[in-house]
């Protein structure tokens, strides 16, 4: 591994100072399951890694009436072992539970998955459909940005030199809502999504119609894609096979995948249609309890 310094600040301010000092030669370290692999591959010219796990705000996991706060260093297992998170944020649990294997889940952080900005990142689309916000600290203070606007290209985010993702805020889901995430992989575990879909739905008080829907697609574009047309189409529509199939078909057209070693454009588009259909139905099932 190329030599770099290890810094473990105890406050956000201290972390920002170190990150600012080193500019693009410093990276925050959460679980390290992407960063240390990339450091070995000399992807970064690193002078320092800044471990966020001694910063209380980055390790906070708190569900309350205001919603859920996920510190940027909180590992996957804490998400799927937390009863409140399992009860109210099942779609986020779906993503956390399939990132890597058990060893990876002991370390890999939801915030790290977001900052790594892989088009296939399993934590990202669930956050998007829940309407999550990234809380960023930097030399000029704090700013907030919607998770759906966070990734701007493969491995690229809105985070600037000197900035740190401190936490992610997820609003408390509405009544009669449900969400789900699923990916297609050729193996059972330990693989990277060929295509994946997250859906959240709110159903109206008759229980028969969609009130609002959010659909996000992974691994079918340079960043996670918000399937806005498919989401808008379903708002106010009756919950039935015809409306769900039509939305899945629209989502398929919103995907813009490439062909690579994991799958072809045709295969990926087909998968988006199939998984979107399934995830809408699963979200409705969860919304109805």
């Amino acid at each position: 591994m190329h030599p770099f310094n290890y810094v473990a600040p105890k406050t956000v301010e201290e972390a920002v100072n170190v990150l600012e000092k080193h500019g693009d030669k410093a990276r925050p370290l959460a679980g390290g399951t992407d960063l240390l692999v990339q450091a070995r591959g000399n992807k970064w010219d690193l002078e320092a890694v800044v471990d966020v796990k001694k910063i209380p705000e980055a390790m906070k996991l708190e569900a309350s009436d205001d919603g859920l706060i996920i510190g940027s260093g909180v590992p996957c297992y804490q998400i799927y072992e937390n009863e409140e998170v399992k009860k109210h944020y099942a779609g986020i649990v779906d993503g956390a539970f399939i990132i890597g294997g058990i060893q990876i889940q002991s370390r890999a952080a939801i915030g790290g998955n977001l900052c790594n900005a892989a088009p296939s990142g399993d934590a990202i689309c669930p956050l998007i459909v829940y309407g999550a916000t990234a809380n960023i600290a930097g030399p000029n203070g704090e700013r907030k940005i919607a998770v759906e606007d966070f990734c701007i290209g493969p491995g690229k985010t809105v985070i600037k030199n000197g900035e740190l993702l401190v936490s992610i805020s997820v609003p408390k889901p509405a009544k009669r809502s449900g969400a789900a995430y699923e990916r297609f992989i050729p193996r059972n575990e330990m693989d990277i999504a060929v295509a994946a879909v997250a859906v959240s739905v709110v159903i109206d008080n008759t229980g028969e119609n969609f009130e609002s829907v959010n659909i996000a697609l992974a691994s079918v574009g340079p960043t996670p894609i918000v399937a806005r047309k498919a989401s808008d189409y379903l708002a106010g529509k009756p919950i039935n096979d015809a409306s769900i199939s039509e939305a899945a078909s629209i989502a398929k057209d919103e995907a813009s995948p490439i062909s690579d070693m994991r799958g072809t454009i045709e295969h990926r588009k087909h998968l988006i249609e199939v998984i979107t259909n399934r995830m809408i139905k699963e979200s409705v099932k969860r919304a109805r309890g």
Partner: protein
Amino acid sequence: MTTNIHITTKINNQPYEFLAPSYMSLLDALREIVGLTGTKEGCLDGNCGACTVNIDGRIVDSCLVLAAEIDGCDVQTVEGLATSEGLHPLQKAFLEEAALQCGICTPGFLVAAKGLLDNEPNPSEHRIRHWLAGNLCRCTGYDKIVKAVQKAASES
């Protein structure tokens, strides 16, 4: 210029204090500084699980942990399984079920399986296979490993 990090930790219930380069992995520190070579290097990218150790009750790939991160932690490696009384039930079961051939993956499987049985004494076959998905074996085809874990579970 990088610095050495002063690390105070417990490994297999013994106190250790050592200096490690700030960029050294826990895997390399265990093998090259502490002298515990039971933990094996496999893929170095978190796919194979050969370097699995247990930190504060959670199994991790030690190739993806910096030695600097374990200051103050409790680390368990494969060397901590056997006692003066004899082999750990998992080690005995691996031998009896012939759950290894070349052996490079075995320390990782043992530490991972122990991490499961410590918390879930009677896991289903499905649960065992899911738990061990992060450990690769190119020799046995896994059935013997799963049988060995089931045997150890039933006997402890």
